């Protein structure tokens, strides 16, 4: 039984035509000319309980609009949307009680209250039993290292601290479903890693379903088995991350450090893409030759000190998908 079931979901926005200049301002008052923007256009998917799904796409692709519909903040223009057997926007209050959400760009905590006060208010808002609340708080206190800033007002927190506090706030009521909208935006490497580990842990230990939207593809690579790509309101890809790489990954690379200098480093089945002193980078096609075959050929001909196989970066793959419209 799917936890999220979406079929033919669309959201159109009316954008009123704007006339420029002084006369334009007057025309704007009376003009009802508008164009329709299809922010989300007929998308369908199912998500099973316990899945950790990455939802990616370029800016303005329709990611946030989808998340806002899934969280019950926006009313769809058309289509079916059932989460936890509820229609989010219709039964908002019942629905949001079982859901958690973190928006990287804004906090769900009270800006001028100490973190702990916000968390205490949430206990009342979600009617969390005292034992659950205390057990959760203790666990998150440890894993998210909240200790140093529990008594600090939210406005005085660093971005990384605020994100940790927000994550804690979103999970205190043991939601079945967690929406993360760019949870690592603007964070440094260490803070990102900490957040990722935490998300993984929650997903594993509590079987919480997680929907993650992000621009940071290393988030997706480290966390998600399944990825959905949306662009211009259309769902372009929905499947396993490895399948995405196999299909669109393009060339793999082999970097070789030779022990001595040779006149030429040419080898059949691969092309040289870079060369510095004794280090040569080869590119080879997946399906044409395997890495071990290529290494065999090289070591038969040259003396090799060190080598490294580089998989195509997911970043690169997705860039190609966006730019070359590979999926259309």
């Amino acid at each position, binding site marked *: 039984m799917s936890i999220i079931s979406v079929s033919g979901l669309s959201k159109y926005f009316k954008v009123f035509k704007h006339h420029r200049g002084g006369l334009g301002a007057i025309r704007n008052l009376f003009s009802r000319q508008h164009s329709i923007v299809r922010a989300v256009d007929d998308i369908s998917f199912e998500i099973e309980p316990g899945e950790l799904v990455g939802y990616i796409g370029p800016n303005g692709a329709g990611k946030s609009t989808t998340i806002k519909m899934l969280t019950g903040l926006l009313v769809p223009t058309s289509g079916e949307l059932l989460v936890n057997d509820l229609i989010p926007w219709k039964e908002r209050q019942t629905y949001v009680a079982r859901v958690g959400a973190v928006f990287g*760009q804004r*906090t769900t905590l009270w800006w001028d209250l100490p973190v702990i006060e916000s968390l205490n208010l949430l206990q009342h808002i979600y009617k969390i039993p005292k034992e659950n609340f205390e057990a959760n708080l203790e666990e998150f206190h440890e894993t998210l290292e909240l200790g140093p800033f529990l008594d600090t007002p939210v406005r005085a927190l660093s971005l990384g601290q605020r994100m940790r506090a927000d994550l804690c706030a979103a999970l205190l009521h043991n939601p079945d479903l967690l929406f993360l*909208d760019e949870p690592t935006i603007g964070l440094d490497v260490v803070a990102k890693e900490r957040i990722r580990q935490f998300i993984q842990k929650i997903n594993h230990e509590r079987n919480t379903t997680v929907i993650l939207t992000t621009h940071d593809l290393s988030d997706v690579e480290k966390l998600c088995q399944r990825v959905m790509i949306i662009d211009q309101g259309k769902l372009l890809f929905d499947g396993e991350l490895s399948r995405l790489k196999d299909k669109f990954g393009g060339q793999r690379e082999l970097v070789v450090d030779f022990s001595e200098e040779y006149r030429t480093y040419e080898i059949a089945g691969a092309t040289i893409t870079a060369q510095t002193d004794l280090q040569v980078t080869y590119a080879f096609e997946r399906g044409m030759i395997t890495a071990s075959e290529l290494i065999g050929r090289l070591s038969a001909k040259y003396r090799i000190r060190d080598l490294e196989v580089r998989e195509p970066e997911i970043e690169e793959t997705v860039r190609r998908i966006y730019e070359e419209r590979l999926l259309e």
Partner: protein
Amino acid sequence: MRLFWQLTKTSFQRHLTYRTAALAGLMTNFFFGILRAAIFVALYDLQTEVEGITLEGAITYAALGQAMIGYLSLFSWFELMNTIYTGDIASDLLKPMNYFGFWMAQDLGRAAVNFALRGVTVMIGYAFIFDLVWPRGVTRIFAVAVSLLLSWLISFSWRFLINLFSFWTPNARGILRFFFVLSWFFSGFLMPLRFFPQWVISISYLMPFPHMFNTVIEIYLGVLKGPEIILALFHQVLWVLGLILAGQLVLRLGIRRLVILGG
């Protein structure tokens, strides 16, 4: 209900931390009130009573008006509007709570702080300078207290309602300002309503504003007596219910066409 009090308490504590702002507001209200009282002294000249209000009554009216500015947030209130424009409303709608109650609880905390820091202090201050009228008798004091509470309920439900304009227009600030100015005039805040011609009074009583301000003043000053008080309180209750109902309906429509900005 526990959540309601919790939110009220938190908001109370939060507003207590803005002591400097409250003090600044207090000083402004206080000195402006002296000016208003002085104008009454000049206007009354040798008359002892105008439209059933004595000079002491008029000065007390000015003092009460100044004391209630903070409590009723008479000059402006854009907090809800701002959350719609910043998109912070998303966080509030993602919480399983009654949206109206959520704001009401917080406004109660705000009103309580303003009542204590800016209301009571202003009255005490004027008591040193002028001869003020004080309500006599347990029943009248009780009626004033009830009416004051109802005033806040009307004021809040009305502010909630007009802030919802921001669901429909990208800049509701101007509209809200217009409504606030309207409220100063028709609530009797600028001048006691009794000083106006009857047709102005009749028009104003078609609006919530006199019930939000004038009623409590007239009960306090003893202009209203016995059954008139009961009737006035009853009208206040009707306005509270009407405004809450309107707020709920408009909120429902607004959320349906909500566009959350940013993110």
